[in-house]
């Protein structure tokens, strides 16, 4: 995949929309748009009082790309990871994001934008580990 100027502009615009979505949830409901937190609360052993809004947020997140695909263009979703590693990856992402109280949205976008020390440390950590994993996988396959 080659990076071109259009990708940078689309990235900025899409990123601004992600920021806007998080801003809507914060300024409206006073809540952090952390996807792992919202999902985690839905599969927790006890459902919180906010389960309806959590479910609606998740529904919007899942349905919007379908509408976008129908009206504009369907996105590429290209996964090259083998099935065992795909499942391992899902388990690690789910468990790790809950253990570390956040993922790319909660820590990466919502926390870093308010200069939370925990979120900055978390984001630097998961970025560094993910970069190392990709490098290691390339080395093994080469």
């Amino acid at each position: 995949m080659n990076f071109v100027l259009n990708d940078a502009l689309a990235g900025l615009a899409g990123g601004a929309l992600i920021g806007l979505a998080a801003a809507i949830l914060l300024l409206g409901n006073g809540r952090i748009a952390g996807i792992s937190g919202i999902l985690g609360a839905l599969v927790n052993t006890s459902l919180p009082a906010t389960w309806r809004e959590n479910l609606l947020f998740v529904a919007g997140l899942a349905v919007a790309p379908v509408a976008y695909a129908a009206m504009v263009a369907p996105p590429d979703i290209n996964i090259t990871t083998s099935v065992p590693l795909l499942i391992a990856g899902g388990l690690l992402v789910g468990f790790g994001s809950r253990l570390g109280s956040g993922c790319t949205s909660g820590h990466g976008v919502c926390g870093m934008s308010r200069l939370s020390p925990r979120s900055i440390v978390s984001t630097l950590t998961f970025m560094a580990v993910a970069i190392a994993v990709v490098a290691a996988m390339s080395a093994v396959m080469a």
Partner: protein
Amino acid sequence: MRNIVALVSGLVFGVGLVVSDMINPARVRGFLDLFGGAWDPTLAFVMGGALTVMALAWLMTSRRSGSLLGYSLPGKPSGTIDGRLLGGAAVFGLGWGLVGLCPGPAIAGLFLGGWPVLMFIAAMLAGMMAFSLINRTA
């Protein structure tokens, strides 16, 4: 009203993930592949756009005691860096690097990504449930 706000936020978030192409794991792994010779910086632009808008939102809350709808705002961020934070981030990063999917883009790809995304989501939810069970008994 809270429900409508949450739905709208989810919809806008989903559009943002498609427009930025962060719904595509190949694009995300292109950013993480620093040493592969064809680095894709798109994710940095996405973070730049998102952080700028969200920083303005935090600024708007700084002089308010509650949200625009009157709900309580999140408290001041804690500065506690502990093993749980670091360990969780490392485990999360391991999975993120393996696949190129994190929770938001996974859910955004629920109806478009076919069985690989469905399997990833199932495993991710299982991981979250496992944490809930361990956390409760710990």
